C-alpha cells in the first residue's frame, strides 16, 4: 500500500465523465454533483448526451458526457477544459481527450480498449500506446470490467449485470481523490434499489471497491480537498434548470392564488417540465399530455379562460405549431405562459443540444401584429424566479408571455438558494365580480389589462374570440379605424410592462470602451470572460438582458455610454439585429452555432480582438 500524503487543497476542479449512452455517465455525473453540492461547493454542470436513446455501442456519436465543475469560490460556468476525464471506451476517449488540461487525470477503462471497440471508434491501434498521452496526462489505466466483476463477487449477480456497476466503481475512485463523502450516494442507492437488494449490494460494493482501488493506486497518490464556497448564507439545493422552472411554476401559481394547468406534448429538452409537474399533484397541479402541441396550448388557453393559469411547455418545433393559438391568446387577452426550451434548429436539428436561435421567433414569429412579452432566465436557478416573474406579468397584464430557456440551462445544475418565504411576494389574481352591463374589454387605466371574467360567475356571460373587437364591449368590429386602435392598444399594453422592470445592473463601470450584452444561458461565460478582462485593467462591462420584450427602458442610455457594444449569442446575431434596429447603434456580434455553449476563453479571446 502506498503511503497516502496529506490531501492538498484546490480551489476548483472540473471532471468530465464520458462513455456510451448506456454507461450511466449522466447518473454518476449527477451523483458527483449532488455530493459536491452537499459538501458546500459552488458548482455548475453540463450534461451533453446524444439524441439516440441507445446509440450503437462503442460509436463516437453514441458518446454521452457529463461535465461538473465544483469550487471553493463562486463560479458561473461548467468550465471550458477539464482536470479529469473518465473515458469508459475508445469512442469517449476520442471525442473528449482534447478537452483535458495538460497534466490532468485521464482515467480510462482499458477493459473496453479492445479490438472491436477501437475499431468502432476508428482507431487502428490503441491510442493508449501513444506516448504523447502518457507524457501529457496523468494516465490512469484500469480495467473497470474485471475490477467490478471482482468487486461484486458473492452478491450472486451475473457478470453481465455486475458490469453495469462499473460507473459506480469509477465514481468511488473519484470520491476518494476529492475526499468526498460516500453517504449521499449510498443513501441514494438505498432508495433507488430498495426492492432489489442484490443490485443494491453490488453497487455499494462497487462504490467501496472504487475507493480502495484509488487509495492503493500508484497513480492517484494525492488526495485533494475542495473547501466549501463562500456562497450567500442560506439553505441550498442542487437543481437542474427544468426542475427549478417547474418549481417556479408551482410557486408562481400559489403566489397568484391560481390553480396551475399544464398542457404539453413531449419534446426534448422540455419534457422534464411535464414530468416534474405531473408529480406535483398534491399541489393541485393539473397536467394534460395532449395529442400534439396545438392541442397542448389550446387546452392551456381553455384552462385560462375557465380561471386557471394555463401553461404550455415545448421546444422550437412545438412553438412553430403553437403560433396560431398564441395569436388567439393575444386577441382574447388571456393570461398564458408559453415555455420554449430552445434546442438546435431548424427542424429536428440538434434535438439534445443547446442554441438561442428562437429569439426572433419569440418576438415576431406570429401572424399579424402580435406582441408578446419575452423573458429569458440566465441560469438554471434563475429559471425559478423567471417563471414567477412571467406568471405575474401574464396575470397582471392579461397576456400570454413567452419564457425562453435553452437546453444548457434546462439540463445544467447549480446550487439553488432557497428563497425566504417572505421574499416571495403574493400577487393574487383579480377576477371580475358579478355586475350589470359587464364590459369584457374595459381596461385598467394603469396596465391596460382587461378583466378576467371566469365562467360560473353570474352576470358576466360574454363571448370572446379571435375576430377583431371593439374596445370596451368586446363586440365584433371590423371597422378600419377600430382595428388600428386595437392593434395600438395591444401593443401599448405590452410596452407598459417595461415600467415594472428593476433597473438593469451593469457589471463594471457605467461607461467605458466596451459593453458586452448577452441574454439567456450565455450569462456565465460572458460574466467570467468580462471579469478576466477587467482584471487586466481593460474597460469592459457586462449587461445581461432578462427581459427581451418589451426592452428595458434604461437600456438605451447604457448602450450609449460605451464606445463599442459586443453581443455574443448562440445564433447568427438575433439580439444584435434587434438592438441595432431599436437603438441605431453599431453593435457587433459574436456567434457560436455549434450546439455547444460558449467557453469563457472564447469570449475572452474575442474581447481581446476588439481592444
Amino acid at each position, binding site marked *: 500500500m502506498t503511503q497516502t500524503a496529506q490531501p492538498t487543497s484546490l480551489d476548483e476542479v472540473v471532471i468530465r465523465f464520458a462513455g456510451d449512452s448506456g454507461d450511466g455517465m449522466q447518473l454518476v455525473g449527477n451523483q458527483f454533483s*449532488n455530493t459536491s*453540492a*452537499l459538501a*458546500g461547493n459552488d458548482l455548475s454542470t453540463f450534461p451533453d448526451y446524444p439524441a439516440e436513446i441507445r446509440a450503437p455501442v462503442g460509436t463516437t456519436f453514441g458518446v454521452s458526457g457529463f461535465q461538473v465543475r465544483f469550487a471553493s469560490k463562486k463560479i458561473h460556468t461548467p468550465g471550458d477544459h477539464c482536470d479529469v476525464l473518465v473515458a469508459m471506451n475508445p469512442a469517449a476517449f476520442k471525442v473528449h481527450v482534447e478537452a483535458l488540461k495538460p497534466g490532468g487525470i485521464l482515467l480510462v477503462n482499458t477493459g473496453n480498449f479492445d479490438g472491436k471497440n477501437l475499431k468502432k471508434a476508428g482507431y487502428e491501434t490503441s491510442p493508449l500506446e501513444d506516448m504523447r498521452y502518457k507524457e501529457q496526462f496523468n494516465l490512469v489505466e484500469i480495467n473497470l470490467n474485471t475490477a467490478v466483476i471482482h468487486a461484486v463477487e458473492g452478491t450472486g449477480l451475473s457478470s453481465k449485470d455486475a458490469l453495469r456497476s462499473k460507473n459506480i466503481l469509477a465514481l468511488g475512485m473519484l470520491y476518494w481523490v476529492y475526499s468526498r463523502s460516500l453517504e*449521499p450516494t449510498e443513501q441514494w442507492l438505498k432508495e433507488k434499489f430498495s426492492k432489489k437488494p442484490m443490485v443494491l449490494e453490488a453497487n455499494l460494493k462497487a462504490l467501496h471497491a472504487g475507493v480502495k482501488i484509488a487509495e492503493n493506486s500508484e497513480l492517484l497518490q494525492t488526495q485533494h480537498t475542495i473547501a466549501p464556497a463562500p*456562497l*450567500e*448564507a*442560506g*439553505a*441550498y*439545493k442542487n437543481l437542474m434548470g427544468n426542475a427549478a422552472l417547474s*418549481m417556479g411554476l*408551482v*410557486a408562481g401559481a*400559489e403566489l397568484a392564488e391560481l*390553480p396551475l*394547468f399544464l398542457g404539453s406534448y413531449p419534446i426534448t429538452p422540455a419534457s422534464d417540465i411535464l414530468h416534474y409537474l405531473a408529480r*406535483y*399533484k*398534491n*399541489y393541485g397541479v*393539473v397536467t*394534460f399530455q*395532449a*395529442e*400534439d402541441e*396545438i*392541442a397542448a396550448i*389550446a*387546452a*392551456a*388557453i*381553455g*384552462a385560462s*379562460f*375557465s*380561471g*386557471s393559469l*394555463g401553461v404550455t411547455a415545448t421546444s422550437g418545433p412545438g412553438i412553430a405549431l403553437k403560433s*396560431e*393559438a398564441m*395569436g*388567439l391568446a393575444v386577441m382574447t387577452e388571456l393570461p398564458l405562459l408559453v415555455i420554449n426550451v430552445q434546442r438546435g434548429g431548424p427542424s429536428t436539428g440538434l434535438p439534445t443540444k443547446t442554441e438561442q436561435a428562437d429569439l426572433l421567433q419569440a418576438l415576431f414569429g406570429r401572424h399579424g401584429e402580435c406582441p408578446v412579452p419575452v423573458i429569458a432566465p440566465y441560469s438554471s436557478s434563475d429559471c425559478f424566479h423567471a417563471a414567477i416573474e412571467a406568471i405575474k406579468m401574464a396575470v397582471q397584464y392579461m397576456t400570454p408571455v413567452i419564457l425562453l430557456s435553452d437546453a444548457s440551462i434546462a439540463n445544467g445544475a447549480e446550487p439553488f438558494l*432557497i*428563497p425566504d*418565504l417572505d421574499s*416571495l411576494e403574493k400577487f393574487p389574481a383579480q377576477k371580475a365580480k358579478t355586475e350589470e352591463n359587464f364590459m369584457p374589454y374595459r381596461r385598467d387605466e394603469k396596465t391596460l389589462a382587461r378583466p378576467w371574467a*371566469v*365562467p*360560473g*360567475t*353570474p*352576470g358576466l*356571460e*360574454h*363571448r*370572446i374570440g*379571435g*375576430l377583431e373587437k371593439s374596445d370596451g364591449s368586446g363586440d365584433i368590429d371590423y371597422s378600419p379605424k377600430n382595428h388600428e386602435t386595437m392593434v395600438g392598444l395591444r401593443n401599448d399594453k405590452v410596452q407598459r410592462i417595461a415600467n415594472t422592470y428593476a433597473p438593469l445592473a451593469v457589471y463594471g463601470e457605467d461607461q467605458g470602451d466596451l459593453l458586452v450584452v448577452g441574454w439567456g444561458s450565455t450569462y456565465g461565460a460572458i460574466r467570467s470572460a468580462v471579469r478576466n478582462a477587467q482584471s487586466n485593467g481593460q474597460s469592459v462591462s457586462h449587461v445581461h438582458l432578462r427581459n427581451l420584450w418589451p426592452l428595458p427602458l434604461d437600456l438605451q442610455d447604457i448602450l450609449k455610454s460605451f464606445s463599442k457594444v459586443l453581443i455574443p449569442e448562440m445564433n447568427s446575431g438575433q439580439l444584435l439585429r434587434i438592438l441595432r434596429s431599436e437603438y441605431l447603434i453599431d453593435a457587433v456580434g459574436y456567434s457560436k452555432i455549434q450546439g455547444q455553449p460558449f467557453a469563457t476563453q472564447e469570449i475572452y479571446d474575442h474581447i481581446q480582438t476588439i481592444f
Partner: protein
Amino acid sequence: MSLSYKKKDFVSDQDVRWCPGCGDYAILSAAQQVFAKLDIPKENFVVVSGIGCSSRFPYYVNTFGFHTIHGRAPAIASGVKIANPDLDVWVVTGDGDALSIGGNHIIHAARRNVNMTVLLFNNRIYGLTKGQYSPTSDPGTKTGSTPYGSLDTPFNPITLMLGAGAGFVARTVDTQIPHMKSVIEAAHAYQGFSFVEILQNCVIFADKVFEHITEKGIRDSRQVNLMHGEPLVYGNDLEKGLQFTADGLKIVAADQADTWDAQQRDAAKAYQICQSQENGEFPVPIGIFHSVERATLDAQVHAQIAETTEKLGKGSLTSLLQSGEIWNVGEK
C-alpha cells in the same frame, strides 16, 4: 330548484348573420330551447366553437362563449372542462372544422372521454370559405376546388366517432326539430363525451345534399330512427323493419324487426347499420347509435389529485421549497 328559463334567456343581443334559409338557424333555435329546459344556471354554460359558418354559433347564445381557431375547439373545450369540471361544456363545429383540420382533436377528446357535448353541423361543404368540398362530401362533388368533381372518399362521422371510442354517438336532422331536440337533450344527459352529427343544409353552396334522405314526403321510408329498446322499424306506416342476420342486415316486416340496443359495449351493430348506402335500398339511420358510460377524464384527473393529496398531504410553498436534499451555508 327550477330556474324556469325561457328560450329568450339564451338569445344574445348579436344579429345573426347566417344566410337566409340556412339550416343553422333551426339548430340554434332548438339548442336554445334545450338549454332553457336543462335547469342549469346560465353562467355555467360554456359554448366553444372553431371557425366556420357553424362556429359563429356561440355569439348568438347568451352564455359564456369562445369562438376559437379552426379545428381546435375540442382541445380548448378539454382544457375548459378539465380545469373547471363544474362547467357545462358544449362544442359547436363543422364538418371541415371537426373532421379535417381538427380531426386529431376530436378523436382524442372522444377517446379520453372528456365530458362535453359536441354538435357537428354537417353540411358536406366548407361554407365560410365559399364552398369547397369537405371530408364528408360525396365523391364527384363539384365545387370551386373540384371543378371536375371530387375524387376522395368521405368520412362517415358516426363510424369515425365510434372508432375513436366516443361513448355517445347520435345523428339528427336540422329540419326535424322535435327529433333534434330530443337527441341533443339525450346527448347532454349522457355523462361523458357525447357527439351529435346534425345533417344541415347549406342553401348557398350545397343546397339539398340531404334531400334524398330528409325531404318530407320520403323521409319516413328513407330514415330509420334508432331508439334504445325500440324496434328498428320505418316506412310511411312503420311497416318495415331491420334485422341483423348472419348474412348481414336484412329488411323484414315490422313485426320481425330487431330491438335496438344502443348500450352494447361493443359497437359492432352500430357500425353495421351505418354501412348501408344512402342511395341503396336500406334506410339511413338517425337517432342514438351508441350510449355506453365510462369514467370521464375530467372526473378521474380530479380524483387522482384528491387521492394524491390525501396520501402526501396538501403541498404548500414551504413543502415545495424544502423538499429534497438541502444544505445550509452560513448561519441560518
